């Protein structure tokens, strides 16, 4: 058995062990560290496949940026201990295992019986060496054939960062942004059983800046739009 096969099996076993540990671990921080192990093994697999640049990018982006970001978030959310993660929900776990095994069977069949192969290109290892290496060859392809996609990716990253800032922005102190600003009350507000002034759609001034709009007076009930349901409207008389 040649050396590279032995090395591949070692890397694959470590990657699968890291992924399994990530799923099994009880502490989310342990899960993140297991995933770091798995991602470094994936970077080694990229290097074995001749994609050195992607291997470095994998380590920098995934283990350097994404998982550090995740560890920060992990310390910002509530450190909640959920024992039912591991003792409860046997049906859910059984469904997960069964569906995973079915998909594994299908994918293994697909890999074993694969007949279609792609058209051969000219980027063999020797040609890539002639250009100067994997990074140079990838740069040439990226800035000629995939230039538009490259620019779109930069747009996606900008929008993603802006969206993350907007989503993670804390609500203002004391003001919950999801609280309804205006209250529409069809009934009398508390303690204001005042007869309406005559006239269609008479406008009634309430407290500070909010307005109460009185609807046709035959009913005797008013449609009051006010920023506070308990606010007592002051009848100011019709303006028509």
């Amino acid at each position, binding site marked *: 058995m040649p050396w590279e096969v032995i090395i591949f099996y070692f890397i694959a076993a470590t990657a699968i062990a890291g992924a399994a540990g990530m799923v099994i671990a009880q502490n989310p921080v342990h899960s993140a560290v297991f995933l770091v192990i798995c991602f470094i093994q994936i970077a080694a697999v990229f290097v074995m496949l001749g*994609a050195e640049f992607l291997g470095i990018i994998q380590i920098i982006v995934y283990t350097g940026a994404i998982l550090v970001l995740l560890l920060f978030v992990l310390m910002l959310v509530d450190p909640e201990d959920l024992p039912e993660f591991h003792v409860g929900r046997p049906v859910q776990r059984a469904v997960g295992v069964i569906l995973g095994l079915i998909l594994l069977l299908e994918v293994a069949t697909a890999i074993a019986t694969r007949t279609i192969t792609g058209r051969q290109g000219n*980027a063999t290892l020797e040609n890539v060496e002639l250009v100067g290496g994997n990074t140079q060859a990838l740069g040439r392809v990226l800035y000629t054939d995939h230039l538009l996609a490259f620019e779109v990716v930069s747009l996606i990253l900008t929008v993603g960062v802006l969206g993350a800032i907007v989503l993670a922005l804390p609500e203002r102190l004391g003001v919950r942004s999801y609280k309804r600003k205006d209250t529409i009350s069809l009934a009398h507000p508390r303690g204001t059983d005042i007869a309406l002034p005559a006239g269609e759609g008479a406008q009634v001034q309430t407290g500070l800046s909010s307005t109460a709009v009185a609807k046709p007076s035959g009913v005797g009930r008013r449609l009051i739009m006010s920023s506070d349901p308990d606010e007592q409207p002051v009848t100011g008389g019709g303006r028509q």
Partner: protein
Amino acid sequence: MELTIEHFLGLSAALFIIGLMGVLMRRNVLIIFLCVELMVAAVSITFVAFARETNTLYGQTFALFAIAVAAAEAAVGLALILALSRRVRSVDIDEFRTLRD
């Protein structure tokens, strides 16, 4: 015994399915997020393996774009998790059942 593309495809499938099982089995929304990241990385192994097989570089550029989009997705996803946990005071995915309070 030669190292063929099927080895790498098998590793990719195994990692993808471990990530899928994690998504289906776990209830901590942070672990589910990690499993999704693992699935993205596993698929990029497939891209690079096919690029090696066909002697092209297009698979590698695809994997590069996948990594970039995964970074943007991680930022947005973690911000969503942060906002959700701030509102519901929990990381249990079963608690997230409404879009409003």
